[in-house]
């Protein structure tokens, strides 16, 4: 009992340090993992009766670094494809052609921009891509008369819509919950639909509130810097983001080969010569890895924490506590996770890219809840974190670029995001209980 209490206190202290911005997440997760092991009495080095390693140095720290290996690879290959989309002008062309389709109708322009941004972020990842897309989309939205705060909020919601179908993220979730990608997809389809509806509602509410009725056209100029993609090849290049999704979601192709197919596809329809294509391939690979670096190191920490909390000796200590807290009834589950969803903010305990990964593993390990129900609860909470957390780099950058307060964006989006989470938890309760 004492050990369990100490672990919970350690959890709370480290969470507090993270939320107080005293400890970066990439350090906090492995540190917490070691603290948990030490409190639970896991030896640093040791073997069990059968001669297998049980010490935390090898089973947690060493093994944890590669625990999320497949997810890390998915992020790298996704970032590589994302970089190719940015460098070949596909990203820019998708946005600009979309803006042209909208003409001079603010609502249509906004809806089309949301679709384009969502489509792009099914593949793109990282702050570099957010900047690439945001620097084009935000001025377009603002120029058609959407107030800056509304434009920033709509842009982030569109980003969250795309994120729900980001297959690199699916692989991460698959590793965290120990479920097949199909299971993740099965639930993310609902999240995509709910987030999209919420985004459309947000747009209508903002337009009505601000009386957006300006009707001059968006400034879509053929700037000298833009690489123009024309003709059939250009059109085919612009459907690149759909290639990996179709392969993974509909044809059941594994994630990395699907990204490779996307890479091949975009090179095929944008390259002018073999040598140029090869140069671009190498450069975008290196840049993609740089883009993915924060996610990679975070996943190393998540893997270490995961193995710490699922260590047999730690589970033995923590299970009695969790059994007392985690609900087992459908109604209890809905109330419990609906109320706790905002704890995904500020890298809180419901955040899958923070302490939440460890907690999710612990709850699944209890065996009292269906792992898919745990996934549903955490993926619902992830909606709030994805675009509502004022500590996300994409939120801070968007707020900075649109010259609005980042906390104002969170306040504006929280009612929508919390509603999405509650609906997600309810859907999860009905399909997985």
């Amino acid at each position, binding site marked *: 009992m004492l050990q369990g209490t100490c672990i919970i206190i350690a959890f709370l202290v480290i969470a507090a340090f993270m939320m107080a911005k005293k400890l970066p997440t990439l350090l906090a997760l492995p540190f917490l993992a070691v603290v948990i092991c030490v409190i639970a009495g896991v030896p640093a080095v040791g073997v069990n009766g059968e001669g297998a390693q049980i010490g935390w140095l090898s089973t947690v720290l060493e093994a944890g670094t590669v625990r999320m290996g497949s997810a890390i690879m998915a992020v790298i290959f996704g970032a590589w494809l994302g970089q190719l989309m940015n460098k070949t002008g596909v990203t820019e062309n998708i946005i600009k052609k979309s803006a042209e389709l909208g003409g001079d109708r603010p609502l249509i322009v906004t809806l089309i921009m949301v679709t384009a941004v969502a489509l792009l972020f099914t593949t793109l990842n990282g*702050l570099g891509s957010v900047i690439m897309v945001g620097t084009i989309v935000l001025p377009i939205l603002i120029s058609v008369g959407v107030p800056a705060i509304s434009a920033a909020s709509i842009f982030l919601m569109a980003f969250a819509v795309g994120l729900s179908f980001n297959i690199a993220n699916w692989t991460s979730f698959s590793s965290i919950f120990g479920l097949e990608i199909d299971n993740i997809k099965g639930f993310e389809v609902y999240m995509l639909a709910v987030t999209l509806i919420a985004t459309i509602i947000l747009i209508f509410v903002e337009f009505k509130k601000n009386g957006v009725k300006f009707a001059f056209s968006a400034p879509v100029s053929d700037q000298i810097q833009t690489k123009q993609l024309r003709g059939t090849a250009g059109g085919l290049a612009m459907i690149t983001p759909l290639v990996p999704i179709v392969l993974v979601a509909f044809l059941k192709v594994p994630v990395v080969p699907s990204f490779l197919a996307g890479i091949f596809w975009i090179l095929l329809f944008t390259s002018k010569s073999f040598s*140029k294509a090869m140069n*671009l391939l190498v450069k975008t690979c290196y840049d993609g890895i740089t883009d993915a670096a*924060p996610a990679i190191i975070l996943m190393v920490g998540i893997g270490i924490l995961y193995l710490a909390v699922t260590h047999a000796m730690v589970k033995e200590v923590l299970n009695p506590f969790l059994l007392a807290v985690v609900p087992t009834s459908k109604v209890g589950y809905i109330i419990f996770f609906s109320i706790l969803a905002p704890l995904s903010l500020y890298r809180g305990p419901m955040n899958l890219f923070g302490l939440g990964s460890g907690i999710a593993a612990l709850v699944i390990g209890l065996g009292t809840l269906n792992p898919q129900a745990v996934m549903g609860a955490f993926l619902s909470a992830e909606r709030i974190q994805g675009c509502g957390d004022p*500590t996300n780099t994409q939120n801070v950058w968007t707020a900075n670029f649109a010259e609005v307060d980042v906390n104002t964006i969170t306040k504006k989006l929280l009612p929508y995001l919390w509603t999405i989470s509650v609906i997600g938890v309810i859907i999860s309760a009905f399909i997985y209980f």
Partner: protein
Amino acid sequence: MKKSGLQDMKRENLRLIMNVILEKETVSRIELSEIIGLSPSTVSSLTSELIEKGWIVENGVTTPTGGRKRIELSVNSSKGYIAILEIGWRRAVLHFLDLALEKKHSVLISDYYITGNELLEQVTHCLREEAENFCNGKLAGIGLLFQEDMSPSDFNVMYSTSLSSASISFCEAVKTQFKVPVMEEYSQVYSFRQIMKKEESTNSAHIEIGKKVFVSITSNGTFLDMTEGKKADMTPFIENTGKKMSADKLSEGIVNLLQMICMMFPIENVYLSGRLDEGDRLAERINGQLKKSDLLKHAVEVKAIKPVINHMETDLGKRVLKKVICEM
């Protein structure tokens, strides 16, 4: 389908006029009308708008033409300014140019290597606190001029919210900070471009030897995209460049590198520049070794050159201004 409204057409015409004035420096309305192909009345109306917005001025020079006076138009130098940040290993200097592309002032940002975050902080301070002392108007655009063997990734900026962080390029960070058009250029590419203008070589390689060894390639007069923008870091092919190397070892390394490059690209001329004590003798030695090589299927001539760095800031400033006009 593109929907070009009247607004778009007008914006495009305004850009055309600005570009002609920028190229010609001073030009009359009637000349503008002839060059662009718009009616004199349209040109007159558009130039009036540009004068009203402060982009151009009637510079007072009048030329009598058959009894009528012609008023010359030029870019309003005091409308704003362009900042060109020259970034090298040992120093970073911020140059201020007015919109007539005249250098007004230079500020030494640092005389030692500093990280991207420190550089951004100091540039921000300089542009926000000091620029008004020697420039009129608002910041219109920024040019980043990376020197010699610099790579933009050496100045990546850590964008941190304490709980989350991401590494972004210096260019992206500057765009975010100032929200003006930003252009990147490499002094190597710039000086190589100058050489190409003189030499009229269309398939060539440029090897810059310094702390690192960078190679740029042009094919049919166009720079190829490489791993570091328009250049590639080939340091591993020439060992130990950080230390002083013997001429023999250096030429041997360059020959190996050239053999590999020439197998992939139809290179005719190779230009060497950078930290070379006796560039011509090195080129001669390499030419001798290449002639003996049976790996080369065509003749390649190696020359040592000194980079042309005059007016680099002005040249980049002009390109930044064109981008500003493009986005106005």
